């Protein structure tokens, strides 16, 4: 039994994922490379006598790595990536409709000293464009097997598999560099100046050609001063005789141009292809922009409202589960832990799943189409205003639905500083979980008036201002971050705009499911722990004395009532009063009373204070908590008239004439919710995506700080009118 490890490399947008999928079928695992959020896909294929391990390497245009995923790509090929062994062979995926630029990476890979196989994809698109490729000639020019495939139609897969396992010699470089360079490469590779792992013709050549020196870093080899000087000297020597700037691309493209001119014949295209027409529509100044707006509107709508029915189902199922399980367990601490802690906690995580799945399906589909690049292109100028690039647009737009998929979507941003800035401001976009709070408070406290000559309702205006507030603060924070903490040279915006093609639905669905599962597994555990912790703080010490005292005080009223219905009503009121009293006496309740001096400048009483504290794990919890604390029982939602009425009539403890929820208080609370980082799930996902607790902590501190100050400001201002 033979074992072979084969790495799939290729430019982005070449259909590499489709080919990987066609080769590996169901036997694939998706995960992350340790320490970085770069997707790692490994597949297993059993071919008669050989068991193949396929590694799908992140797409790259060159072996000069410019971003974290390109670094991973190169390090996997070098075998220096932790957790992967050096591949035995390399499968180069080449877009036949874009041969010249794809061959650039191929010519680099041929020099690695491993057997190489080339798979052509998009052969049909090349044909449509009238391109005819001499495949035998290409194979001869490259000195390696070339197989034409159409992964989506499963064409060419069987011949490719045969070639993959057939006995093969290591490939050799085909591009002739100047003799002096070859001589210097030989000297460096055979001499003692370089550290031992770099004494290799391929690595020595990369060191000479790649002035950024990324290869040593990627190969995880420390170069001392002597080694550096030796390389620099050799480079200078080459340069004096070949004063060509960018020697590597110039020489490689020189070779490629001559090969492509010889082997690709250009026929007259068969009329305008459907792809050509679509491309023209998508890139047109007006129709392209309109289509963009419609697509983004659809994406937003999908994540925002199409997810709702599924979320309701999840919500309903967990409520049902809670009550069913609750019936089996006798009342007490265990009952409350399981029902209010565990089941409600898990439910609060799973509820985000529909949004995540829908968003990732959309993003995967748009990426598969090649449309994501176009969206980034259209929005780049706007995002450049705050120092970001067009690639930040979709993550930020998605964050209006939910920051969690938004932060995960930031993986498409290549520049690490841009990506981090996007992640850090994403939670400022008003997500769907803030909506219930806005709705409750505007409905209860903002007068139903028309403003601006009857055009706008005041309530709608207030609601809209909350969304604007988040965007404005995000712009300011992004700008400050990009000019201070995350300052750096503006990264270039060099982006391929791939032609439109129908995405492979299997690849898209697979990605969607793996992202969804990732979220549930990794974020779930911690969110769950936090929820249980808050539950415990809100439950204990749970002195039964509290309940019996209340019951006694109600007993008299019960005795006066004869009607069953009225008694049931009173019973409900008593139950609510009991849970309210328990909460008031719990650790959380005591905390609320302690922090009252801190929330008073915001116009809040201790009850709002504790509702807000309890909602730090998940802001939507505040509705339920307010329900409990204002003696209404846990089961309330923003539409329940009782909570709204109760909010309207609530008064300060011991001051029956002083209403709690005045307009300034409602505004200050809404502003606080608009800006505060009250979502444990978001912070956990942020930790996972940035690989450190530093950034979620930073976000928590800055957002909570801004929220507190802004809420205080709006309260103090509004109180003067």
């Amino acid at each position: 039994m033979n074992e072979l490890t084969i790495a799939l490399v290729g430019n982005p947008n070449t259909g590499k994922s489709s080919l990987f999928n066609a080769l590996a079928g169901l036997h694939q695992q998706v995960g992350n490379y340790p320490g970085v959020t770069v997707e790692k896909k490994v597949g297993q294929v059993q071919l008669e006598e050989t068991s193949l391990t396929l590694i799908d390497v992140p797409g790259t245009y060159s072996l000069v790595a410019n971003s974290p995923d390109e670094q991973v790509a190169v390090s996997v090929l070098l075998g220096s990536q932790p957790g992967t062994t050096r591949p035995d062979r390399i499968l180069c995926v080449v877009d036949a409709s874009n041969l010249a630029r794809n061959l650039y990476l191929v010519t680099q890979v041929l020099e690695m000293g491993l057997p190489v196989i080339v798979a052509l994809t998009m052969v049909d698109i090349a044909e449509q464009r009238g391109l005819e490729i001499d495949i035998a000639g290409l194979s001869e020019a490259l000195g390696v097997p070339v197989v034409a495939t159409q992964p989506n139609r499963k064409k060419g897969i069987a011949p490719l598999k045969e070639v993959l396992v057939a006995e093969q010699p290591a490939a050799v470089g085909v591009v002739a560099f100047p003799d002096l360079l070859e001589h210097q490469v030989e000297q460096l590779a055979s001499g003692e100046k370089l550290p031992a792992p770099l004494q290799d013709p391929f690595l020595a050549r990369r060191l000479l050609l790649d002035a950024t020196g990324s290869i040593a870093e990627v190969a995880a080899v420390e170069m001392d001063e002597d080694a550096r000087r030796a390389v620099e000297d050799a480079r200078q020597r080459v340069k004096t005789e070949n004063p060509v700037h960018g020697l590597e691309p110039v020489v490689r493209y020189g070779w490629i141009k001559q090969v492509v001119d010889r082997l690709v014949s250009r026929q007259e295209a068969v009329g305008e292809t459907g792809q050509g027409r679509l491309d023209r529509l998508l890139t047109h100044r007006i129709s392209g922009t309109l289509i963009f707006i419609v697509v983004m509107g659809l994406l937003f709508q999908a994540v925002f409202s199409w997810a709702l029915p599924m979320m309701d189902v999840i919500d309903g199922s967990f409520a049902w589960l809670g009550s069913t399980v609750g019936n089996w367990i006798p009342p007490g601490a265990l009952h409350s832990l399981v029902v209010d802690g565990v089941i409600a906690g898990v439910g609060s995580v799973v509820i985000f799943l529909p949004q995540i799945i829908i968003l990732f399906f959309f993003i995967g589909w748009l990426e598969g189409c090649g449309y994501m690049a176009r969206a980034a292109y259209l929005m780049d100028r706007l995002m450049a205003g705050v120092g970001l690039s067009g690639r930040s647009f979709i993550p930020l737009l998605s964050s209006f639905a939910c920051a969690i998929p938004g932060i995960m979507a930031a993986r498409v941003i290549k520049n690490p500083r841009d990506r981090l800035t996007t992640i850090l401001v994403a939670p400022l976009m008003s997500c769907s979980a803030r909506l219930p709070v806005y709705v409750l408070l505007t409905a209860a406290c903002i007068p139903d008036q028309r403003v601006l000559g009857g055009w706008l309702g005041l309530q709608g205006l207030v609601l809209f201002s909350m969304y604007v507030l988040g965007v404005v603060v995000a712009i300011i924070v992004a700008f400050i971050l990009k000019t201070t903490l995350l300052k750096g040279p503006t990264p270039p915006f060099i982006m391929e705009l791939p032609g439109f093609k129908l995405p492979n639905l299997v690849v898209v669905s697979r990605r969607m499911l793996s992202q969804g599962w990732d979220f549930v597994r990794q974020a779930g555990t911690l969110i769950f722990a936090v929820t249980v912790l808050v539950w415990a703080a809100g439950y204990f010490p749970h002195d039964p004395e509290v309940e019996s005292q209340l019951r006694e005080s109600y007993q008299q009223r019960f005795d006066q009532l004869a009607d069953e219905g009225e008694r049931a009503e009173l019973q409900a009121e008593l139950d609510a009063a009991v849970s309210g009293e328990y909460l008031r006496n719990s650790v959380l309740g005591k905390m609320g009373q302690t922090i009252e001096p801190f929330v008073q400048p915001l116009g809040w009483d201790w009850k709002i204070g504790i509702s807000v504290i309890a909602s730090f794990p998940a802001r939507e919890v505040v509705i339920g908590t307010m329900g409990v604390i204002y003696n209404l029982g846990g089961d309330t939602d923003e539409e329940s008239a009782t909570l709204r009425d109760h909010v309207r009539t609530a008064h300060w403890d011991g001051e029956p004439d002083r209403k709690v929820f005045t307009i300034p208080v409602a505004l200050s609370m809404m502003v606080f919710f608009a800006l505060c980082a009250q979502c444990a799930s978001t912070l956990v996902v942020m930790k996972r995506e940035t690989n450190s607790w530093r950034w979620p902590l930073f976000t928590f501190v800055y957002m909570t700080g801004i929220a507190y100050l802004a809420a205080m400001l709006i309260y103090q201002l509004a109180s003067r009118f």
Partner: protein
Amino acid sequence: MITCLRRNWKMLTRLARGETGRIKEVLGEDSIAIQLMEMGLVPGIDIRRVGSAPLGDPLEFELLGFRLSLRRRESERVILFDD
């Protein structure tokens, strides 16, 4: 700075929509210049301006049979032959 000295040179940004030019040189020796060249912007290659984004930046080009978007900032490094 370099662009000021060589103002009379024809930069990529000077191409009109639909116009094609031949690349003479990419200015600068940093990694951005290398990235541009690795994408095929090497001397002797023909490049066509396809259009620009609605807000005027970035620009869209076609070369070697694929579409590439560059900001004006990067496009200004690419010098074309005067015809």
